[in-house]
């Protein structure tokens, strides 16, 4: 197990290293400079030099560093936890990420929890009552859920609950934009503002989790040891929830492990629709502004998260299933 862990961590670091080199080079060879001279034709050359130097692109005299040298500088800073400075905000990328990360974790974390809390029981419920009306209904609804992109759903939720209902004589519905003043100070108000974005993100995940849970549960339920357990006279509940569930939940662990790093990534479109100040919105604005250090920062964070949580998922397997040995 220890050797396995060391090997996995080493591979993970190598992967991150390769990804950073790839993304770094891509952002550097894209045409367009971080400082657009057209914005202020009078800007003094020494100021441009100073700015480019601060961004790690040139030496003090304004001579461009070659890309490999820029990468070495970037990597050196990265090892010290420094993701560089934003071209646009003139602030450390780590500072910007730390400002936005809690908001994304709150939004996507809540959506994931809601999806798990509803999706898993729904899947189990459908599997244990295969071909019942409820199973068919759940399946149909999940198909629809999987098919609708969350941004389309977001716009419809916004239209129905944020516009039509609120502008109707009912005057009832939910706010159109994200966190309100004092959101953090007023949890009830915050929850009220979270309803629509969380719903639009969770519906898709509920559909996925329930589909997977159902399929996985059905596979296990048809195995011999389940029949044996039933033949021994164990109750249906005990067989389903003790013997079957523990095995059936394994694939879900991978799904959740893949979903968690996405929390860091934020939900680019959904955060845009609901004006939620998370990392997704930050990444989107960075793409529009060609703010490469910020894009690179978000990409590296998601990459690191994916590597880490996949590792955690593998370790969790061993805990959930004692037969798995590394």
């Amino acid at each position, binding site marked *: 197990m220890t050797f396995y862990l060391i090997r996995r961590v080493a591979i993970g670091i190598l992967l991150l290293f390769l990804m950073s080199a790839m993304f770094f080079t891509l952002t550097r060879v894209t045409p367009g400079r971080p400082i*657009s001279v057209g914005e*202020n034709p009078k800007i003094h050359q*020494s*100021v441009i030099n100073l700015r480019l130097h601060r961004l790690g692109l040139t030496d003090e005299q304004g001579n461009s560093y070659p890309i490999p040298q820029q990468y070495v500088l970037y990597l050196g800073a990265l090892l010290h936890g420094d993701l560089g400075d934003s071209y646009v905000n003139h*602030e450390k990328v780590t500072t910007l990420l730390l400002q936005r990360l809690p908001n994304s974790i709150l939004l996507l974390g809540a959506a994931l929890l809601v999806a798990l809390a509803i999706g898993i029981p729904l899947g189990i419920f459908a599997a244990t009552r295969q071909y019942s009306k409820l199973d068919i209904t759940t399946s149909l609804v999940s198909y629809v859920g999987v098919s609708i992109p969350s941004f389309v759903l977001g716009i419809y939720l916004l239209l129905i609950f944020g516009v039509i209902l609120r502008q109707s004589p009912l005057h009832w519905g939910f706010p159109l*934009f994200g966190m309100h003043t004092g959101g953090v100070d007023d949890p009830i108000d915050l929850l009220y503002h979270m309803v629509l974005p969380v719903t639009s993100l969770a519906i898709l995940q509920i559909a996925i989790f329930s589909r997977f849970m159902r399929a996985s549960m059905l596979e296990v339920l048809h195995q011999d040891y389940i029949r044996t357990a039933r033949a021994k006279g164990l109750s249906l509940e005990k067989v389903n929830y003790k013997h079957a569930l523990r095995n059936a939940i394994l694939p879900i662990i991978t799904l959740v492990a893949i979903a968690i790093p996405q929390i860091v990534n934020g939900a680019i479109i959904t955060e*845009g*629709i609901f004006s939620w100040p998370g990392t997704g919105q930050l990444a989107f604005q960075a793409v529009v502004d060609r703010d490469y250090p910020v894009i690179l920062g978000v990409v590296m964070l998601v990459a690191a998260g994916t590597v880490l949580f996949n590792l955690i998922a593998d370790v969790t397997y061993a805990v959930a299933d004692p037969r798995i040995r590394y």
Partner: protein
Amino acid sequence: MVAATIAILVAACGNTAPSSETPKNGGTLIWALDSDATTLNPFVASTLPEFRVISFLFPNLYAGDKNLNVVPDLADGMPSVSSDGLVWTVKLKKNAKWSDGTPITADDVLATQKIQGDPKLDTDYSYDWSKLKTIEKVDANTVKYTLTQPFAPFLASNLVGYVAPAEVYGKLDPAKIRDDPVSKAPTVFGGAYKLDKWIPGQEFDLSVNPNYYNGRPHYDKVIGKVITDATAAANALINGDVAWHPSLGESGAGGISKAKKSSNVQVHTYQDLGYIDFRMNTRKGHIFDNVLTRQALASVLDKPSIVQAATQGAGAPLWGDIVPASWAYDANSVVKYPLDVNKAKSLMQQAGWTIGSDGVATRPNPTGSGTQKFVGKIRVRAGKPDRLKAAEIISDQVKQIGMQLTPEPTDFKVFYPPIQKGQFDVFIAGFSLTLEPDDYSTAHSSQLQPEHHEGQNWTGYSNPQLDSLIDQERSTVKATDAETKAARKAIFNQIEKIISGDVQTYMLWADVSSMGWTTNVGDVVAGSGDNTIYYDSNNNPASRAQWYSKSGK
């Protein structure tokens, strides 16, 4: 100082009468911002959302009134100008104070100018103090500007704008001013409000500045909410979640008409200070180097239908480079080219072009041997559907006279560098205008780029007669602002005749904008042409202090 424009709108309609109620204090004004700011340092700010927030926080020396005439704000009266037009003396309101209780004095005005005029100031905003010879403090409340030559745009371009506290910004190195913590968290304010909190990506929380020199503004608090989605922002106004939406026009024709139908909303729609044009490279050897060719282009295009199709009504066809919102605009001074395909064909012939069997015009190569085909590209910014649509229609209509022009959508970051090097055929671009109508930087031959180091006359157009008129217009300074404008307007009329007659650039449309308020906001007053431009950005922040909440909330 930040330039702002003075203008009189053409149509005098849609004035909103001030409310008969007595304004009361209290309540919170929540307004919509379409994107976050990156700085709250007035010297560094360069985007509209940044100026919108900053305008609540810093005093303005002069401002534009509802009809966009320059009026005093922090200044006590209009500047007195010497008879030779060289010395401008400005008095400040006595007893004006910063939020920390210290007086706002001539020292602050001097320090602000010093930073703006520093060639090493790290900003993307362009400040031009080249006509200033000296600036002196006469006494604590009086500043004397001496210019190198009489310069009429000085009032609207240099004196309309913010003043920052010397005590805070005067100590900073202009080359490093961007990175100082005060850029993110200003500490001393002189505008109607103070900044309490900036939550990145979310909002700006402001509260009333008790020391404001124009007296207490009515709203207790002002909250700028970042709402990135234009449709959501328009609906937020209709729902009453925000009370003011300065960029309502961004939500498109559908959003505006929905807001207009709502009984909870008051909307003002007006021609703004910005235009879109089709800018040709007129340098020798380029396809548009002959004035007759450019006139042929103007005669073959059906401008009203192009503008209507491209903007869906959000643009007003334009013939000269002075927009209707400006006081210098005169509809009769411009040369208009009505649609006339036969005339266009004959002009092409006179210019030496003959249409070949493939439908493309050719002429003997003016810079070498062989022939030159009329083939070129229309550079247009990607992500601007109205401009792209216009490029497509133009490309189609000019085929009739053998012009083969292909639209080439290009990302903004790489849009300008080839243009600044003179390597282009045509580009469609948007120009945001200041309140000063002077067209020196885009039309004067000293502003040719890349021939000279600065300027925005990328077309290569050079005309000594036009240069002389522009120089004359800029140096006409009379005893009063009204007299100066009247004298300059007569010269502007001659300038516009040349620019439109020679098709120095083919103008497309002037932007039409909309602003919306909920009906709970009292004392919103529109100027002529239903314009509310003066409420926006730092045109006239003091005017917003008159608004009040009818419900008190």
